[in-house]
């Protein structure tokens, strides 16, 4: 059996089934939904950071743009929710295209520019001058499409698609070439790889994923403000979850989300500042002692981690 099929059968299918069944037995649907959203976003970060080395510090920009893409379709054009989710993904891609020049920057410059870009989109959307289009800082309320069950199902579908794409990256020549570009772009071009095209494809795929996630998020919560959907926490959590598990693998980000977001929900709500303290210390410890993530505990011993 080829390894891609193995990965699909033993990782993607069980995960999708679990999240499809869980709402029937577990009451806190919002929590389950958030888990799915973070699984999507962590894999989206994995696509761009794990496979190409660009740290998307403003990843939430695509998520928020997707959420507003959904909202504007529903508010202004009364489109059905599913169509609006697709548009949300396209809005993510469009923003990604607009930001492709950022890929010329490397290292910290890219990360900072991406952060600035996400904040620029936030301030643009939240500008009172655009109230007639985005409702500005006053937030949107989308009562017409409110249907948490359908929105949850859509989120699981987006998660499944995202995972299938990561499995493809992990098992294909395309994914291998992306990693080659990450390791050394000059050598990669001398192996015949079109470096610019590869990076743009990964960047847009990652933007698409976040845009779709933003769309289903808007569908699910139906009432939100710019500060909610452009909250830097989305970027940071997605990056930390992915890193904690280990990027450039399929399992790493999944483990990261389940463990860290699990801990978050155990201690997070009662005392946010203590949670923030523990979280900050955890992040620092992670970088100093386990920079390649949990999976590196296994790979160091020579075990292969898919």
């Amino acid at each position, binding site marked *: 059996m080829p390894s891609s099929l193995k990965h699909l059968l033993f990782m993607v299918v069980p995960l999708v089934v679990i999240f499809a069944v869980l709402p029937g037995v577990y009451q806190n649907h919002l929590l389950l939904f958030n888990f799915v959203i973070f699984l999507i976003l962590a894999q989206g970060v994995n696509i761009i950071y794990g496979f190409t080395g660009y740290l998307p510090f403003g990843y939430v920009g695509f998520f928020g743009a997707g959420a507003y893409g959904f909202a504007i379709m529903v508010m202004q054009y009364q489109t059905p929710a599913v169509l609006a989710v697709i548009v949300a993904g396209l809005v993510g891609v469009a923003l990604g295209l607009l930001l492709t020049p950022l890929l010329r920057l490397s290292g910290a410059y890219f990360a*900072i*520019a991406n952060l600035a870009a996400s904040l620029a989109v936030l301030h643009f959307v939240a500008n009172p*001058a655009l109230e007639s289009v985005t409702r500005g800082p006053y937030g949107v309320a989308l009562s017409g499409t409110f249907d948490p069950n359908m929105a949850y199902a859509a989120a699981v579908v987006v998660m499944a698609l995202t995972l299938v794409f990561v499995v493809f990256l992990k098992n294909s020549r395309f994914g291998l070439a992306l990693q080659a570009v990450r390791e050394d772009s000059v050598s990669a071009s001398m192996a015949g790889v079109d470096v610019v095209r590869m990076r743009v494809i990964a960047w847009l795929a990652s933007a698409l994923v976040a845009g779709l996630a933003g769309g289903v998020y808007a569908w699910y919560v139906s009432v939100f403000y710019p500060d909610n959907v452009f909250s830097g926490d989305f970027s940071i959590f997605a*990056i930390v979850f992915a890193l904690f598990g280990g990027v450039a693998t399929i399992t790493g980000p999944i483990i990261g989300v389940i463990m860290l977001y699990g801990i978050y929900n155990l201690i997070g709500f009662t005392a946010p500042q203590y949670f923030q303290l523990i979280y*900050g210390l955890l*992040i620092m410890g992670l970088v100093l002692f386990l920079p390649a993530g949990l999976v590196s505990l296994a790979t160091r011993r020579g075990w292969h981690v898919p």
Partner: protein
Amino acid sequence: MLIYALVAGVLFGLYFSLVGIGLNLVFGVMRIVNLAHGDFLMLGAFVAFGIVTLAGIDPLFAVPLAFVVFLLVGVLLYWVLVPRLQGSVNPEMLSIILFFGLSQVIEAITTIFSGTSERSIQSRLLGTVFSTIKVKLFGGKPGPAGPVHIFGQGFPAPWVIAAGTSLLAIALVYVYLYRTRMGTLTRAVMSRRDEALATGIDVDRISAAAFGIGLGLAAVAGVFAPFMFGSVTPAFGADATVTSFAIVVLGSLGNPLGTALGGVVYGVCYMMVQTYLSSWADLLPYVLLIFILLLRPSGLLGRRVRVA
């Protein structure tokens, strides 16, 4: 109106230079992105709050105190965090995440001890030391310093004091970098870290000093933050970091003196947009940052200054 905006822009700009210069020094010397930079500004503001509430004296006295305290904190933090970070595969990238963690820790601890409410200091308290001296030397009535008049327009005294302090701090950074032995070594590490290491320069000692100075300068800038921005909360740090980046990149990343120019350009732009296009003023730092990075990644001054 135009003259007011220009002068206010320059005053704010000089202050913005002080806000960014520490970040740039740290990046220039260590290639580390101190994402907790803004949090040290925030802590500097808390030193000023402390001086005012506990000692009841002019917050200007917080300037030397904040600098010394955070110089020491910086040296200590350097040894705890940076050598280990530099040993990893991709220190520049991981530094972003590491210092993000640190900023979370600082913000959480500050919130635990002081709550999330906004704090401010009455602006007439800043600079009372000057009027006291004036009374002592020349006699007259003790009282708060009024607005300072430049080109026939009145500007709040704290703006002028902050701008003056910033100018002094930048001058001292210049003296340190170009007139002292440590400064010469610092510039050597900035231009080629690997070669500096190979020639036997104690790179860690130089870097620790630069890190300490960087945090000290951030804290000094923080002392004035309550006067320049009205109030400060523990969450103030994150925004201050992005603004600092805009200033630093504008001047030229890795060239601390370029920051002075970057700050002034930023300050003037800021005041112009504030005056004529106020609803879009929030967008300015981000858009400016992206454009400068894309069009002139080396900043306005580029490399020429560094080579010269």
